[in-house]
């Protein structure tokens, strides 16, 4: 009885849930040596407290505008920080001369292009967008014997470890 009630409640909640949101992927320029980062490292990079990759090359940080839905989700879900807190940290750097804030890119499409073109850069995109520009893991396995060079993709997908 309790089990049925529990399932019914879950079903009712599910009915009111929005359509499943696309996950967020962290991408970097292909020349970036790191393939994975801890969540703390990712947060340090976006709060401008870590400025170099593991090979000592400079990190260039790209972000979407403050009111972009992907930006707000990225801040809360991947950095566990509220977007206004990020703004405050970046404004302080920019307007007090203490440092440099991330570069704002208008759209997801332009952000991908910026990451492709800029050595040492990092950004974030929807998983579905990544799938449209880059071969998936299964594609790679299937094609690995045919073409090892051509399947690396256009960006480096960074795995975030908890």
């Amino acid at each position, binding site marked *: 009885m309790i089990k049925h009630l529990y399932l019914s409640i879950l079903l009712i909640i599910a009915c009111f849930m929005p359509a499943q949101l696309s996950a967020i992927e962290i991408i970097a320029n292909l020349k970036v040596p790191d393939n994975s980062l*801890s969540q*703390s490292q990712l947060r*340090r990079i976006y709060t401008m*407290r870590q400025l170099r990759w593991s090979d000592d090359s400079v990190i*260039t940080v790209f972000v979407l505008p403050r*009111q972009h839905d992907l930006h707000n989700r990225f801040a809360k879900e991947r950095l566990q920080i*509220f977007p206004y807190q990020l703004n405050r940290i970046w404004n*302080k750097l920019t*307007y*007090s001369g203490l440092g440099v804030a991330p570069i704002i890119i208008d759209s997801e499409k332009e952000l991908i292009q910026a990451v492709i073109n800029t050595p040492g850069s990092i950004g974030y995109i929807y998983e579905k967008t990544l799938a449209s520009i880059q071969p998936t893991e299964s594609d790679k396995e299937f094609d690995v014997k045919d073409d090892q060079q051509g399947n690396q993709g256009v960006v480096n997908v960074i795995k975030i470890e908890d």
Partner: protein
Amino acid sequence: MLSKLKTNIVWSGLFLLSYCNYAHKLFSRKFLYTFVIVIIFSGAAHAETEKNYNQSTIQDFQLHGFIALGLIDVDGSDFVNDEEGLSPDLTELGLNTSYQLTDTVRLAGQVVYLNGGNRYAKGFRVDYALLDWAAYTDESWQANIYLGRFKNNHWLYSSSRVVPFARPSIILPQSVYFDGFRDIAVGSDGAYIKVSHSNDKLGNFDFSLSYGKSPISDKQTEILLGDSAFGKTIQDYELHGSVYWQPTFSQWRFGLSLLNSDFHYNQNQDFDVFYNAEFDFQFYTMNAMYEGEYWEFSGEIYQQRFVTDGFYVPGFHKDSTGQGFYGQTRYKVTPNLTLLAKYEYFYLDKNDKDGKKLQETTGVPYYFGFNNDVTLGLAYGVSSNMEVRAEHHWVEGGGRLTPVVVPDPQKNSSEKWTMWAIQFMYWF
């Protein structure tokens, strides 16, 4: 890694000691303006000559700015103007640039134009103009040395007080962020060291230490001492340190700051009401800030010690300790609308909190001995880079009205006064 950091800092410290002795001679007004203009034009020229579109150019050279215009109306004091009417003296403009010379060296500068009526001197000024050397950096440590004119980064809002959209209210709590003292407290010419440490278990730490001095204009002297002071006020030095700590993945941040500064006053040999003097000023603050999804809380507790030798008559000596605090909260009603409430309590002498002794000994009305303020306000974000703010202040006391040393009870004849302001701001 840590030993390398220490070696770098020791080496840098020796250099800075010798540099600080000459810093004030270097940073003339003309030199600082030239410095900022050269960065802007060299960066722009560099960007222009890049034939191919390249993101690294954007990273190397950045240009930002802000415009804020508003109206302010004060009833019962000369905080903004002597006439007490509605005033447009709430203008703040700023333009800044940053140019990355090498991987470790960066130039940055900001010029601002301010018009705040009686609050501070009207006009252009170089807010900061500095060379930033990233002396050491790794995954968890960063050490930067800033040379030139740098911002005071030690109090909760000291580095963002000049930036309208980055501070919590149009008028900041005056007991800490006293506008009459703005040009001296906002930054210094000298050297500033910042060491940041990020630790997965303990959290983020920021250690700052600065040494320098601020030029004090005749207008600033008049604002502080009144128009009967014909001599020169000179800051001998300012030593300022602070520590900030944010526990790992916490919404809280805690800070502590210590300031020691000496000034002297050289009386005008031809004619002056006042005499040669030495002033010793110490200021200690503790602060906490909570940033939740909807609620924000922040507050600072502080103590100041002001020692005067001379000035009124040769041999005069006074040592007074002022104390106070403010607490404020902001609530985000919607992503665009934020409400503000603040309470501030401050007195200039802990042995004379109600100002009665001040009145008995000097004849200055008692209410110049304290300053309490209740503020309600709101901010509405029109877009990503546009905002409108409005706020109302209910103030008791004249402890933060200028001139400070010789208060003007004729213009400020009531203990209670009010003020409201509305400001529109745009930034890029």
